[in-house]
Protein backbone atom coordinates (compact mmCIF):
# COMPACT_ATOMS: atom_id res chain seq x y z
CA UNK A 1 0.00 0.00 0.00
CA UNK A 2 2.78 2.36 1.05
CA UNK A 3 4.69 1.52 -2.06
CA UNK A 4 1.64 2.15 -4.24
CA UNK A 5 1.15 5.52 -2.59
CA UNK A 6 4.79 6.36 -3.18
CA UNK A 7 4.56 5.38 -6.83
CA UNK A 8 1.42 7.45 -7.19
CA UNK A 9 3.11 10.49 -5.64
CA UNK A 10 6.09 9.97 -7.90
CA UNK A 11 3.92 9.73 -11.01
CA UNK A 12 1.97 12.88 -10.06
CA UNK A 13 5.17 14.74 -9.26
CA UNK A 14 6.68 13.78 -12.58
CA UNK A 15 3.49 14.79 -14.35
CA UNK A 16 3.76 18.19 -12.67
CA UNK A 17 7.39 18.54 -13.68
CA UNK A 18 6.54 17.54 -17.21
CA UNK A 19 3.79 20.20 -17.25
CA UNK A 20 6.00 22.92 -15.84
CA UNK A 21 8.79 22.12 -18.27
CA UNK A 22 6.40 22.25 -21.14
CA UNK A 23 7.48 25.06 -23.37
CA UNK A 24 6.89 25.16 -27.05
CA UNK A 25 10.35 24.71 -28.49
CA UNK A 26 10.96 27.44 -30.96
CA UNK A 27 14.06 27.54 -33.04
CA UNK A 28 13.68 30.65 -35.07
CA UNK A 29 14.86 29.83 -38.55
CA UNK A 30 17.80 31.96 -39.50
CA UNK A 31 16.71 34.50 -42.06
CA UNK A 32 18.49 34.23 -45.36
CA UNK A 33 21.52 36.51 -45.51
CA UNK A 34 20.86 39.72 -47.36
CA UNK A 35 22.25 39.65 -50.88
CA UNK A 36 25.53 41.53 -51.09
CA UNK A 37 25.01 45.06 -52.33
CA UNK A 38 27.55 46.89 -54.36
CA UNK A 39 28.42 50.34 -53.02
CA UNK A 40 24.98 51.44 -51.81
CA UNK A 41 24.57 55.17 -51.50
CA UNK A 42 22.47 54.95 -48.34
CA UNK A 43 23.38 52.37 -45.68
CA UNK A 44 20.71 49.62 -45.53
CA UNK A 45 18.80 49.15 -42.27
CA UNK A 46 20.58 46.69 -39.98
CA UNK A 47 19.11 43.18 -39.99
CA UNK A 48 17.16 42.12 -36.92
CA UNK A 49 19.15 39.83 -34.67
CA UNK A 50 18.42 36.13 -35.15
CA UNK A 51 16.64 34.62 -32.20
CA UNK A 52 18.35 31.46 -31.04
CA UNK A 53 16.36 29.24 -28.73
CA UNK A 54 17.04 25.82 -27.37
CA UNK A 55 14.33 23.20 -27.61
CA UNK A 56 14.08 20.98 -24.56
CA UNK A 57 12.78 17.43 -24.86
CA UNK A 58 9.73 16.54 -22.79
CA UNK A 59 9.28 12.99 -21.43
CA UNK A 60 6.55 11.17 -23.34
CA UNK A 61 5.83 8.50 -20.76
CA UNK A 62 5.50 8.11 -16.99
CA UNK A 63 8.48 6.78 -15.06
CA UNK A 64 8.52 2.98 -15.15
CA UNK A 65 7.84 1.08 -11.96
CA UNK A 66 10.59 -0.83 -10.26
CA UNK A 67 9.93 -4.49 -10.80
CA UNK A 68 9.53 -5.48 -7.17
CA UNK A 69 6.32 -7.43 -7.49
CA UNK A 70 6.38 -11.04 -8.68
CA UNK A 71 8.71 -11.99 -5.85
CA UNK A 72 7.66 -15.60 -5.70
CA UNK A 73 7.96 -16.09 -9.44
CA UNK A 74 11.41 -14.55 -9.29
CA UNK A 75 12.40 -16.92 -6.51
CA UNK A 76 11.14 -19.79 -8.62
CA UNK A 77 13.09 -18.61 -11.64
CA UNK A 78 16.24 -18.14 -9.60
CA UNK A 79 16.04 -21.79 -8.62
CA UNK A 80 15.49 -22.37 -12.34
CA UNK A 81 13.74 -25.73 -12.73
CA UNK A 82 14.27 -25.39 -16.49
CA UNK A 83 17.61 -25.98 -18.16
CA UNK A 84 18.82 -23.62 -20.85
CA UNK A 85 19.10 -24.88 -24.43
CA UNK A 86 22.45 -24.16 -26.07
CA UNK A 87 23.16 -23.47 -29.75
CA UNK A 88 26.06 -23.55 -32.18
CA UNK A 89 27.68 -20.40 -33.51
CA UNK A 90 25.34 -18.31 -35.68
CA UNK A 91 22.85 -21.18 -35.60
CA UNK A 92 19.23 -21.54 -34.52
CA UNK A 93 19.19 -25.32 -35.14
CA UNK A 94 18.52 -27.65 -32.22
CA UNK A 95 21.21 -30.32 -31.99
CA UNK A 96 20.77 -33.65 -30.16
CA UNK A 97 21.81 -32.16 -26.83
CA UNK A 98 19.44 -29.23 -27.31
CA UNK A 99 16.54 -31.48 -28.25
CA UNK A 100 16.97 -33.63 -25.13
CA UNK A 101 16.90 -30.50 -22.93
CA UNK A 102 13.70 -29.35 -24.62
CA UNK A 103 12.16 -32.80 -24.04
CA UNK A 104 13.08 -32.53 -20.35
CA UNK A 105 11.61 -29.01 -20.12
CA UNK A 106 8.45 -30.16 -21.92
CA UNK A 107 8.05 -32.81 -19.21
CA UNK A 108 8.22 -30.10 -16.53
CA UNK A 109 5.62 -28.05 -18.36
CA UNK A 110 3.28 -31.05 -18.59
CA UNK A 111 3.74 -31.76 -14.87
CA UNK A 112 2.98 -28.12 -13.97
CA UNK A 113 0.10 -27.62 -16.35
CA UNK A 114 -0.74 -24.06 -15.23
CA UNK A 115 2.72 -22.64 -15.86
CA UNK A 116 3.22 -20.19 -18.69
CA UNK A 117 6.78 -19.69 -19.87
CA UNK A 118 8.66 -17.16 -21.93
CA UNK A 119 11.44 -18.66 -23.99
CA UNK A 120 14.20 -16.05 -24.30
CA UNK A 121 16.57 -16.28 -27.26
CA UNK A 122 20.10 -15.01 -26.55
CA UNK A 123 23.28 -14.68 -28.62
CA UNK A 124 26.99 -14.36 -28.02
CA UNK A 125 28.76 -11.06 -28.55
CA UNK A 126 30.39 -12.05 -31.82
CA UNK A 127 27.39 -11.21 -33.97
CA UNK A 128 26.28 -7.62 -34.55
CA UNK A 129 23.73 -6.09 -32.18
CA UNK A 130 21.09 -5.75 -34.91
CA UNK A 131 21.36 -9.17 -36.57
CA UNK A 132 21.50 -10.88 -33.18
CA UNK A 133 18.01 -9.60 -32.36
CA UNK A 134 16.73 -11.70 -35.27
CA UNK A 135 18.98 -14.68 -34.50
CA UNK A 136 17.81 -14.78 -30.87
CA UNK A 137 14.22 -14.70 -32.12
CA UNK A 138 14.91 -17.69 -34.38
CA UNK A 139 16.42 -19.61 -31.44
CA UNK A 140 13.40 -18.91 -29.22
CA UNK A 141 11.00 -19.88 -32.01
CA UNK A 142 12.94 -23.09 -32.73
CA UNK A 143 12.50 -24.14 -29.10
CA UNK A 144 8.82 -23.19 -29.08
CA UNK A 145 8.18 -25.12 -32.29
CA UNK A 146 9.76 -28.24 -30.80
CA UNK A 147 7.86 -27.83 -27.51
CA UNK A 148 4.60 -27.62 -29.44
CA UNK A 149 5.50 -30.73 -31.42
CA UNK A 150 5.98 -32.48 -28.07
CA UNK A 151 2.40 -31.61 -27.11
CA UNK A 152 2.77 -28.38 -25.10
CA UNK A 153 -0.04 -25.92 -25.88
CA UNK A 154 1.32 -22.99 -27.96
CA UNK A 155 -0.53 -20.42 -25.82
CA UNK A 156 1.61 -21.45 -22.83
CA UNK A 157 4.82 -20.45 -24.58
CA UNK A 158 5.82 -16.90 -25.41
CA UNK A 159 9.03 -16.02 -27.17
CA UNK A 160 11.29 -13.00 -26.93
CA UNK A 161 14.73 -12.25 -28.35
CA UNK A 162 17.27 -10.24 -26.39
CA UNK A 163 20.03 -10.54 -29.00
CA UNK A 164 23.35 -10.03 -27.24
CA UNK A 165 21.91 -7.59 -24.70
CA UNK A 166 21.88 -9.91 -21.68
CA UNK A 167 24.91 -12.22 -21.68
CA UNK A 168 24.83 -14.94 -19.03
CA UNK A 169 28.63 -14.85 -18.86
CA UNK A 170 30.16 -11.40 -19.41
CA UNK A 171 33.55 -12.84 -20.41
CA UNK A 172 35.02 -12.56 -23.89
CA UNK A 173 36.20 -16.12 -24.53
CA UNK A 174 34.93 -19.36 -26.05
CA UNK A 175 33.55 -20.52 -22.70
CA UNK A 176 31.49 -17.33 -22.30
CA UNK A 177 30.27 -17.40 -25.90
CA UNK A 178 29.18 -21.04 -25.59
CA UNK A 179 27.09 -20.35 -22.50
CA UNK A 180 25.61 -17.17 -23.98
CA UNK A 181 24.22 -18.82 -27.16
CA UNK A 182 21.10 -20.06 -25.44
CA UNK A 183 17.35 -20.22 -25.13
CA UNK A 184 16.39 -19.59 -21.55
CA UNK A 185 13.05 -20.52 -19.95
CA UNK A 186 11.42 -18.01 -17.62
CA UNK A 187 8.17 -18.78 -15.81
CA UNK A 188 5.82 -15.83 -16.28
CA UNK A 189 2.68 -17.26 -14.66
CA UNK A 190 1.95 -20.25 -12.45
Amino acid sequence: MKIRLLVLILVVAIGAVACSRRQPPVIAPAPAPAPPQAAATTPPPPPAPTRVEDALPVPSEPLGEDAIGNRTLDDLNRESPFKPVFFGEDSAELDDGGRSVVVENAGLLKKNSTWVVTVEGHCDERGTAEYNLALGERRAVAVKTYLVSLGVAPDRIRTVSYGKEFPFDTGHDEKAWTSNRRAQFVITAK
Partner: protein
Amino acid sequence: MCKENARRALGVVAALLCAGVFAVSAQDQTPAPATQQPSEVAVVISGDPGTPPRYAVPDFIAATPDAADVAKTLGQVLWDDLSFEREFYLIPRDTYTTVPVARTAQQIPFDAWRELGADGVVFGTVQKTGTTVRIEVRLYNVRTRQQVFAKEYTGTDGNPRLYAHTIADEVHQQQRALRGVARTKLAFSSDRNRERIVGSVQDRDVKEIYIADYDGANSRRITTNRALNLTPVWSPDARGIAYTSYRRGYPDLFIAMIYQGVQQEPTKGGTQNWLPMFSPDGTRIVFTSSRDGNPDLYIINRDGSGLRRLTNHPAIDTSPTWSPTGTQIAFTSDRAGQPQIYIVGADGLNLRRLTTAESYADRPTWSPAPFNEIAFAARTGPGYDVKVYDLATGVTRQITFGEGSNESPAYAPNGRHLAFTSTRSGRTQIHTIGRDGRGAKQITRDGNNYTPAWSN
Protein backbone atom coordinates in the same frame (compact mmCIF):
# COMPACT_ATOMS: atom_id res chain seq x y z
CA MET B 1 -7.98 13.80 -18.87
CA CYS B 2 -7.83 16.79 -16.52
CA LYS B 3 -4.04 16.68 -16.64
CA GLU B 4 -4.10 16.57 -20.41
CA ASN B 5 -6.31 19.67 -20.52
CA ALA B 6 -4.06 21.43 -18.06
CA ARG B 7 -1.09 20.55 -20.22
CA ARG B 8 -2.80 21.94 -23.29
CA ALA B 9 -3.71 25.12 -21.47
CA LEU B 10 -0.14 25.51 -20.24
CA GLY B 11 1.13 24.99 -23.74
CA VAL B 12 -1.17 27.68 -25.11
CA VAL B 13 -0.19 30.13 -22.38
CA ALA B 14 3.47 29.43 -22.96
CA ALA B 15 3.01 29.88 -26.69
CA LEU B 16 1.26 33.24 -26.17
CA LEU B 17 3.94 34.36 -23.73
CA CYS B 18 6.61 33.35 -26.14
CA ALA B 19 4.91 35.19 -29.01
CA GLY B 20 4.61 38.26 -26.77
CA VAL B 21 8.26 38.17 -25.84
CA PHE B 22 9.23 37.77 -29.44
CA ALA B 23 7.13 40.75 -30.53
CA VAL B 24 8.54 42.93 -27.75
CA SER B 25 12.10 42.03 -28.47
CA ALA B 26 11.54 42.70 -32.15
CA GLN B 27 10.21 46.19 -31.35
CA ASP B 28 12.72 47.05 -28.66
CA GLN B 29 15.82 46.09 -30.47
CA THR B 30 18.43 48.77 -30.64
CA PRO B 31 19.79 49.36 -34.09
CA ALA B 32 22.84 47.28 -34.80
CA PRO B 33 26.00 49.13 -35.68
CA ALA B 34 26.21 49.89 -39.36
CA THR B 35 28.08 47.05 -40.97
CA GLN B 36 30.31 47.32 -43.93
CA GLN B 37 28.66 45.50 -46.81
CA PRO B 38 31.02 43.03 -48.43
CA SER B 39 31.28 43.10 -52.16
CA GLU B 40 30.47 39.83 -53.88
CA VAL B 41 34.01 38.95 -54.86
CA ALA B 42 35.42 39.56 -51.38
CA VAL B 43 32.92 37.44 -49.45
CA VAL B 44 34.81 34.15 -49.57
CA ILE B 45 38.09 33.99 -47.66
CA SER B 46 40.61 31.83 -49.46
CA GLY B 47 43.83 30.33 -48.15
CA ASP B 48 47.13 29.91 -49.89
CA PRO B 49 46.69 28.02 -53.15
CA GLY B 50 45.92 24.35 -52.50
CA THR B 51 45.43 24.73 -48.76
CA PRO B 52 42.31 25.35 -46.70
CA PRO B 53 41.81 28.87 -45.34
CA ARG B 54 43.37 29.32 -41.90
CA TYR B 55 40.96 30.68 -39.30
CA ALA B 56 41.56 32.12 -35.85
CA VAL B 57 38.74 32.12 -33.29
CA PRO B 58 39.82 34.00 -30.15
CA ASP B 59 37.60 34.26 -27.05
CA PHE B 60 34.53 36.40 -27.55
CA ILE B 61 34.62 39.73 -25.70
CA ALA B 62 32.36 39.97 -22.64
CA ALA B 63 30.71 43.39 -22.88
CA THR B 64 29.31 42.89 -19.39
CA PRO B 65 31.30 41.14 -16.63
CA ASP B 66 28.72 38.39 -16.10
CA ALA B 67 29.01 37.38 -19.76
CA ALA B 68 32.57 36.10 -19.32
CA ASP B 69 31.60 32.41 -19.08
CA VAL B 70 29.38 32.57 -22.16
CA ALA B 71 32.12 34.43 -24.05
CA LYS B 72 34.68 31.74 -23.24
CA THR B 73 32.31 28.90 -24.20
CA LEU B 74 31.45 30.55 -27.52
CA GLY B 75 35.07 30.88 -28.61
CA GLN B 76 35.95 27.28 -27.78
CA VAL B 77 32.79 25.69 -29.22
CA LEU B 78 32.92 27.78 -32.39
CA TRP B 79 36.55 26.73 -32.87
CA ASP B 80 35.54 23.06 -32.50
CA ASP B 81 32.52 23.44 -34.80
CA LEU B 82 34.50 25.17 -37.54
CA SER B 83 37.19 22.45 -37.37
CA PHE B 84 34.69 19.62 -37.61
CA GLU B 85 33.94 19.85 -41.34
CA ARG B 86 37.67 20.22 -42.10
CA GLU B 87 36.92 22.97 -44.63
CA PHE B 88 39.12 25.35 -42.65
CA TYR B 89 42.37 24.93 -40.78
CA LEU B 90 41.76 26.26 -37.28
CA ILE B 91 44.85 27.82 -35.72
CA PRO B 92 45.21 26.37 -32.19
CA ARG B 93 43.84 28.75 -29.59
CA ASP B 94 46.83 28.44 -27.26
CA THR B 95 49.00 30.21 -29.86
CA TYR B 96 46.96 33.44 -29.70
CA THR B 97 48.86 34.75 -26.66
CA THR B 98 51.14 36.85 -28.91
CA VAL B 99 48.14 38.68 -30.38
CA PRO B 100 46.85 41.74 -28.49
CA VAL B 101 43.21 41.37 -27.39
CA ALA B 102 40.81 43.59 -29.35
CA ARG B 103 37.94 45.00 -27.30
CA THR B 104 36.30 46.51 -30.39
CA ALA B 105 36.31 45.60 -34.07
CA GLN B 106 38.37 48.72 -34.76
CA GLN B 107 41.16 47.35 -32.55
CA ILE B 108 41.57 44.00 -34.37
CA PRO B 109 45.35 43.62 -34.83
CA PHE B 110 45.32 42.36 -38.42
CA ASP B 111 49.12 42.47 -38.70
CA ALA B 112 49.53 40.22 -35.68
CA TRP B 113 46.93 37.77 -37.04
CA ARG B 114 48.66 37.81 -40.43
CA GLU B 115 51.94 37.02 -38.70
CA LEU B 116 50.27 34.01 -37.08
CA GLY B 117 49.26 32.88 -40.57
CA ALA B 118 45.53 33.60 -40.26
CA ASP B 119 43.48 34.16 -43.42
CA GLY B 120 40.29 34.81 -41.46
CA VAL B 121 39.66 35.98 -37.93
CA VAL B 122 36.45 35.93 -35.90
CA PHE B 123 35.54 38.82 -33.64
CA GLY B 124 32.59 38.38 -31.30
CA THR B 125 31.04 40.16 -28.34
CA VAL B 126 28.56 39.00 -25.73
CA GLN B 127 26.25 41.25 -23.78
CA LYS B 128 24.14 39.89 -20.97
CA THR B 129 21.02 41.43 -19.44
CA GLY B 130 19.51 39.19 -16.79
CA THR B 131 19.24 35.83 -18.52
CA THR B 132 19.13 37.37 -22.00
CA VAL B 133 22.25 37.37 -24.09
CA ARG B 134 22.95 39.38 -27.19
CA ILE B 135 25.78 38.12 -29.33
CA GLU B 136 27.44 39.92 -32.17
CA VAL B 137 29.85 38.08 -34.40
CA ARG B 138 31.92 39.14 -37.38
CA LEU B 139 34.33 37.35 -39.64
CA TYR B 140 37.15 39.33 -41.26
CA ASN B 141 39.39 38.61 -44.19
CA VAL B 142 42.78 39.27 -42.58
CA ARG B 143 44.48 40.15 -45.89
CA THR B 144 41.91 42.70 -47.06
CA ARG B 145 40.69 43.65 -43.54
CA GLN B 146 37.20 43.39 -44.95
CA GLN B 147 34.28 42.13 -42.93
CA VAL B 148 32.78 39.17 -44.79
CA PHE B 149 30.19 37.98 -42.28
CA ALA B 150 28.31 39.87 -39.58
CA LYS B 151 25.33 38.77 -37.57
CA GLU B 152 23.59 39.34 -34.26
CA TYR B 153 21.83 36.74 -32.17
CA THR B 154 19.70 37.00 -29.06
CA GLY B 155 17.97 34.60 -26.69
CA THR B 156 18.41 33.12 -23.23
CA ASP B 157 21.73 32.10 -21.66
CA GLY B 158 20.40 28.55 -21.14
CA ASN B 159 22.55 26.89 -23.80
CA PRO B 160 25.40 29.14 -24.98
CA ARG B 161 26.77 26.33 -27.18
CA LEU B 162 23.76 26.64 -29.48
CA TYR B 163 24.83 30.17 -30.52
CA ALA B 164 28.26 28.87 -31.49
CA HIS B 165 26.64 25.97 -33.40
CA THR B 166 24.35 28.43 -35.23
CA ILE B 167 27.26 30.70 -36.15
CA ALA B 168 29.32 27.73 -37.38
CA ASP B 169 26.51 26.45 -39.58
CA GLU B 170 25.97 29.92 -41.06
CA VAL B 171 29.69 30.46 -41.69
CA HIS B 172 29.95 27.05 -43.41
CA GLN B 173 26.93 27.95 -45.52
CA GLN B 174 28.22 31.37 -46.47
CA GLN B 175 31.89 30.56 -46.96
CA ARG B 176 31.72 27.02 -48.37
CA ALA B 177 28.06 26.64 -49.51
CA LEU B 178 28.06 23.67 -47.15
CA ARG B 179 25.35 22.42 -44.87
CA GLY B 180 27.12 22.05 -41.52
CA VAL B 181 25.94 19.68 -38.81
CA ALA B 182 26.72 21.76 -35.72
CA ARG B 183 23.05 22.01 -34.73
CA THR B 184 22.26 18.33 -35.35
CA LYS B 185 21.85 15.76 -32.59
CA LEU B 186 22.65 12.13 -31.97
CA ALA B 187 20.22 9.65 -30.46
CA PHE B 188 21.53 6.43 -28.92
CA SER B 189 20.80 3.70 -26.41
CA SER B 190 22.71 3.81 -23.11
CA ASP B 191 23.08 2.03 -19.76
CA ARG B 192 24.66 5.18 -18.21
CA ASN B 193 21.89 5.45 -15.65
CA ARG B 194 23.21 2.20 -14.12
CA GLU B 195 19.73 0.98 -13.24
CA ARG B 196 19.11 -2.74 -13.19
CA ILE B 197 16.07 -4.76 -14.10
CA VAL B 198 15.54 -6.71 -10.89
CA GLY B 199 13.94 -10.01 -11.58
CA SER B 200 13.89 -13.28 -13.33
CA VAL B 201 16.99 -15.45 -13.42
CA GLN B 202 19.47 -12.60 -13.23
CA ASP B 203 19.54 -8.84 -12.76
CA ARG B 204 19.94 -7.11 -16.09
CA ASP B 205 21.02 -3.71 -17.36
CA VAL B 206 18.40 -1.13 -18.18
CA LYS B 207 19.04 0.68 -21.44
CA GLU B 208 17.27 3.96 -22.14
CA ILE B 209 17.24 6.23 -25.18
CA TYR B 210 19.28 9.41 -24.90
CA ILE B 211 19.99 12.33 -27.20
CA ALA B 212 22.99 14.65 -27.25
CA ASP B 213 24.35 17.41 -29.44
CA TYR B 214 26.46 16.16 -32.35
CA ASP B 215 29.58 16.73 -30.21
CA GLY B 216 28.18 14.80 -27.23
CA ALA B 217 27.33 17.84 -25.09
CA ASN B 218 23.90 18.43 -23.55
CA SER B 219 22.91 14.79 -23.28
CA ARG B 220 19.34 14.16 -22.17
CA ARG B 221 17.37 11.06 -21.34
CA ILE B 222 14.34 10.47 -23.56
CA THR B 223 12.82 7.24 -22.23
CA THR B 224 12.11 6.50 -18.57
CA ASN B 225 10.50 3.07 -18.66
CA ARG B 226 13.35 1.13 -16.97
CA ALA B 227 13.44 -1.62 -19.54
CA LEU B 228 15.48 -2.42 -22.63
CA ASN B 229 15.22 0.40 -25.20
CA LEU B 230 17.25 0.02 -28.37
CA THR B 231 17.96 1.23 -31.91
CA PRO B 232 16.59 4.79 -31.93
CA VAL B 233 16.13 6.58 -35.28
CA TRP B 234 15.13 10.18 -35.97
CA SER B 235 12.06 11.26 -37.88
CA PRO B 236 13.16 13.44 -40.83
CA ASP B 237 11.91 16.59 -39.05
CA ALA B 238 14.08 15.66 -36.01
CA ARG B 239 11.13 16.02 -33.65
CA GLY B 240 10.37 12.34 -33.21
CA ILE B 241 12.48 9.31 -32.30
CA ALA B 242 11.30 5.81 -33.19
CA TYR B 243 12.89 3.00 -31.22
CA THR B 244 12.56 -0.59 -30.10
CA SER B 245 11.33 -1.02 -26.53
CA TYR B 246 10.83 -4.11 -24.38
CA ARG B 247 8.64 -2.29 -21.86
CA ARG B 248 5.82 -4.78 -22.50
CA GLY B 249 8.11 -7.79 -22.24
CA TYR B 250 8.62 -8.19 -25.98
CA PRO B 251 10.19 -5.87 -28.58
CA ASP B 252 7.79 -3.32 -30.06
CA LEU B 253 8.01 0.03 -31.83
CA PHE B 254 7.43 3.35 -30.10
CA ILE B 255 7.80 6.93 -31.29
CA ALA B 256 8.68 9.62 -28.73
CA MET B 257 7.66 13.09 -29.89
CA ILE B 258 10.44 14.58 -27.85
CA TYR B 259 9.34 18.22 -27.76
CA GLN B 260 5.67 17.49 -27.14
CA GLY B 261 5.94 14.74 -24.55
CA VAL B 262 3.70 12.53 -26.68
CA GLN B 263 4.21 8.87 -27.41
CA GLN B 264 2.98 7.07 -30.52
CA GLU B 265 2.70 3.31 -31.07
CA PRO B 266 2.42 2.58 -34.78
CA THR B 267 2.44 -1.21 -34.31
CA LYS B 268 0.28 -1.32 -31.19
CA GLY B 269 -1.49 -4.62 -30.79
CA GLY B 270 1.12 -6.45 -32.83
CA THR B 271 4.02 -8.31 -31.34
CA GLN B 272 7.74 -8.83 -31.94
CA ASN B 273 8.59 -5.70 -33.95
CA TRP B 274 12.02 -4.13 -33.91
CA LEU B 275 14.56 -1.97 -35.78
CA PRO B 276 12.32 0.82 -37.16
CA MET B 277 13.53 3.23 -39.86
CA PHE B 278 11.58 6.25 -41.12
CA SER B 279 11.02 6.76 -44.84
CA PRO B 280 12.71 9.94 -46.12
CA ASP B 281 9.36 11.78 -46.15
CA GLY B 282 8.58 10.61 -42.61
CA THR B 283 5.22 9.06 -43.49
CA ARG B 284 6.19 5.39 -43.31
CA ILE B 285 8.30 3.08 -41.17
CA VAL B 286 10.09 -0.04 -42.34
CA PHE B 287 10.91 -2.54 -39.60
CA THR B 288 11.70 -6.16 -38.78
CA SER B 289 8.95 -8.36 -37.40
CA SER B 290 8.46 -12.03 -36.71
CA ARG B 291 4.68 -11.63 -36.49
CA ASP B 292 4.32 -14.31 -39.15
CA GLY B 293 6.80 -16.62 -37.45
CA ASN B 294 10.10 -15.53 -38.97
CA PRO B 295 12.05 -12.26 -39.06
CA ASP B 296 10.96 -10.45 -42.24
CA LEU B 297 10.60 -6.81 -43.29
CA TYR B 298 7.32 -4.91 -43.08
CA ILE B 299 6.25 -1.36 -43.92
CA ILE B 300 3.59 0.51 -41.98
CA ASN B 301 2.25 4.05 -42.19
CA ARG B 302 3.30 6.18 -39.26
CA ASP B 303 -0.28 6.28 -37.98
CA GLY B 304 -0.42 2.48 -37.83
CA SER B 305 -2.41 1.98 -41.03
CA GLY B 306 -1.43 0.28 -44.26
CA LEU B 307 0.69 -2.60 -42.91
CA ARG B 308 2.38 -4.47 -45.73
CA ARG B 309 4.90 -7.30 -45.84
CA LEU B 310 7.99 -6.39 -47.85
CA THR B 311 10.00 -9.64 -47.76
CA ASN B 312 8.88 -13.24 -47.38
CA HIS B 313 11.73 -15.67 -47.04
CA PRO B 314 12.39 -18.46 -44.51
CA ALA B 315 15.79 -16.89 -43.71
CA ILE B 316 16.34 -13.81 -41.55
CA ASP B 317 15.64 -10.42 -43.19
CA THR B 318 16.45 -7.49 -40.90
CA SER B 319 18.20 -4.09 -40.40
CA PRO B 320 16.32 -2.15 -43.13
CA THR B 321 17.34 1.32 -44.36
CA TRP B 322 15.63 3.53 -46.98
CA SER B 323 17.28 5.01 -50.03
CA PRO B 324 17.17 8.84 -50.00
CA THR B 325 14.41 8.81 -52.64
CA GLY B 326 12.33 6.30 -50.69
CA THR B 327 12.09 3.91 -53.64
CA GLN B 328 14.49 1.25 -52.40
CA ILE B 329 15.38 -0.47 -49.15
CA ALA B 330 18.72 -2.01 -48.25
CA PHE B 331 18.70 -4.72 -45.58
CA THR B 332 20.53 -7.69 -44.10
CA SER B 333 19.62 -11.25 -44.97
CA ASP B 334 21.25 -14.60 -44.23
CA ARG B 335 19.38 -16.30 -47.09
CA ALA B 336 22.76 -17.24 -48.61
CA GLY B 337 24.08 -18.62 -45.31
CA GLN B 338 25.86 -15.73 -43.63
CA PRO B 339 24.38 -12.23 -43.12
CA GLN B 340 24.88 -10.11 -46.26
CA ILE B 341 23.54 -6.78 -47.56
CA TYR B 342 20.72 -6.80 -50.15
CA ILE B 343 18.64 -4.16 -51.88
CA VAL B 344 14.96 -4.48 -52.73
CA GLY B 345 12.47 -2.01 -54.22
CA ALA B 346 10.03 -0.49 -51.74
CA ASP B 347 7.41 -2.43 -53.74
CA GLY B 348 9.17 -5.71 -52.86
CA LEU B 349 10.53 -6.23 -56.39
CA ASN B 350 14.03 -6.25 -57.92
CA LEU B 351 15.93 -7.92 -55.12
CA ARG B 352 19.69 -7.97 -55.53
CA ARG B 353 22.65 -8.87 -53.36
CA LEU B 354 25.17 -6.11 -52.70
CA THR B 355 28.02 -7.56 -50.62
CA THR B 356 29.83 -10.62 -51.94
CA ALA B 357 33.34 -10.31 -50.49
CA GLU B 358 32.32 -10.15 -46.82
CA SER B 359 32.01 -13.10 -44.45
CA TYR B 360 29.38 -11.25 -42.38
CA ALA B 361 27.76 -7.86 -43.07
CA ASP B 362 24.98 -6.08 -41.20
CA ARG B 363 23.34 -2.71 -40.42
CA PRO B 364 23.37 -1.12 -43.86
CA THR B 365 22.72 2.64 -43.75
CA TRP B 366 22.12 4.59 -46.93
CA SER B 367 23.98 7.87 -47.33
CA PRO B 368 22.11 11.09 -48.03
CA ALA B 369 22.61 12.74 -51.44
CA PRO B 370 24.88 13.80 -53.09
CA PHE B 371 26.76 10.68 -52.01
CA ASN B 372 25.36 7.41 -53.26
CA GLU B 373 26.76 4.81 -50.95
CA ILE B 374 25.80 2.37 -48.21
CA ALA B 375 27.78 2.03 -45.00
CA PHE B 376 27.65 -1.25 -43.07
CA ALA B 377 29.46 -3.24 -40.39
CA ALA B 378 31.64 -6.05 -41.75
CA ARG B 379 33.37 -8.83 -39.84
CA THR B 380 37.11 -8.25 -40.21
CA GLY B 381 38.55 -10.60 -37.58
CA PRO B 382 37.23 -11.17 -34.10
CA GLY B 383 35.30 -7.90 -34.39
CA TYR B 384 33.76 -5.58 -36.99
CA ASP B 385 34.78 -2.57 -39.02
CA VAL B 386 32.73 0.06 -40.80
CA LYS B 387 32.89 -0.21 -44.58
CA VAL B 388 31.22 1.79 -47.33
CA TYR B 389 29.88 0.37 -50.61
CA ASP B 390 29.81 2.89 -53.47
CA LEU B 391 26.68 2.16 -55.49
CA ALA B 392 27.98 3.86 -58.64
CA THR B 393 31.26 1.95 -58.88
CA GLY B 394 30.52 -1.15 -56.82
CA VAL B 395 33.75 -0.52 -54.93
CA THR B 396 33.89 -1.06 -51.15
CA ARG B 397 36.21 1.02 -49.01
CA GLN B 398 37.04 0.56 -45.35
CA ILE B 399 36.50 3.38 -42.84
CA THR B 400 37.76 1.86 -39.58
CA PHE B 401 40.70 -0.50 -39.21
CA GLY B 402 40.47 -2.91 -36.31
CA GLU B 403 40.66 -0.41 -33.49
CA GLY B 404 38.21 -2.25 -31.24
CA SER B 405 35.02 -3.58 -32.80
CA ASN B 406 33.10 -1.01 -34.84
CA GLU B 407 29.39 -1.45 -35.53
CA SER B 408 26.10 0.30 -36.29
CA PRO B 409 27.14 3.11 -38.68
CA ALA B 410 24.76 6.08 -39.18
CA TYR B 411 25.27 8.98 -41.60
CA ALA B 412 25.29 12.66 -40.71
CA PRO B 413 22.62 14.56 -42.68
CA ASN B 414 25.26 16.09 -44.96
CA GLY B 415 26.74 12.66 -45.67
CA ARG B 416 30.27 13.76 -44.73
CA HIS B 417 30.45 11.94 -41.40
CA LEU B 418 29.40 8.68 -39.80
CA ALA B 419 28.52 7.94 -36.19
CA PHE B 420 29.18 4.38 -35.04
CA THR B 421 29.60 2.18 -31.98
CA SER B 422 33.15 1.24 -31.03
CA THR B 423 34.87 -0.68 -28.24
CA ARG B 424 38.23 1.02 -28.99
CA SER B 425 38.26 2.91 -25.69
CA GLY B 426 37.46 -0.16 -23.60
CA ARG B 427 33.75 0.15 -23.08
CA THR B 428 31.25 0.53 -25.92
CA GLN B 429 30.98 4.18 -26.96
CA ILE B 430 29.64 6.36 -29.78
CA HIS B 431 32.30 7.80 -32.07
CA THR B 432 32.13 9.93 -35.21
CA ILE B 433 34.43 9.78 -38.21
CA GLY B 434 34.72 11.42 -41.64
CA ARG B 435 33.44 9.43 -44.61
CA ASP B 436 37.07 9.29 -45.74
CA GLY B 437 38.01 7.53 -42.48
CA ARG B 438 39.74 10.58 -41.03
CA GLY B 439 38.97 12.63 -37.94
CA ALA B 440 37.71 9.91 -35.56
CA LYS B 441 36.30 11.44 -32.41
CA GLN B 442 34.84 9.89 -29.25
CA ILE B 443 31.43 11.37 -28.46
CA THR B 444 30.13 9.51 -25.37
CA ARG B 445 32.05 8.63 -22.20
CA ASP B 446 29.42 7.75 -19.60
CA GLY B 447 28.41 4.08 -19.26
CA ASN B 448 28.08 2.02 -22.45
CA ASN B 449 26.40 3.58 -25.48
CA TYR B 450 24.98 1.86 -28.55
CA THR B 451 23.32 2.21 -31.98
CA PRO B 452 23.64 5.92 -32.79
CA ALA B 453 21.32 7.80 -35.14
CA TRP B 454 22.09 11.27 -36.52
CA SER B 455 19.31 13.85 -36.79
CA ASN B 456 18.63 16.09 -39.77
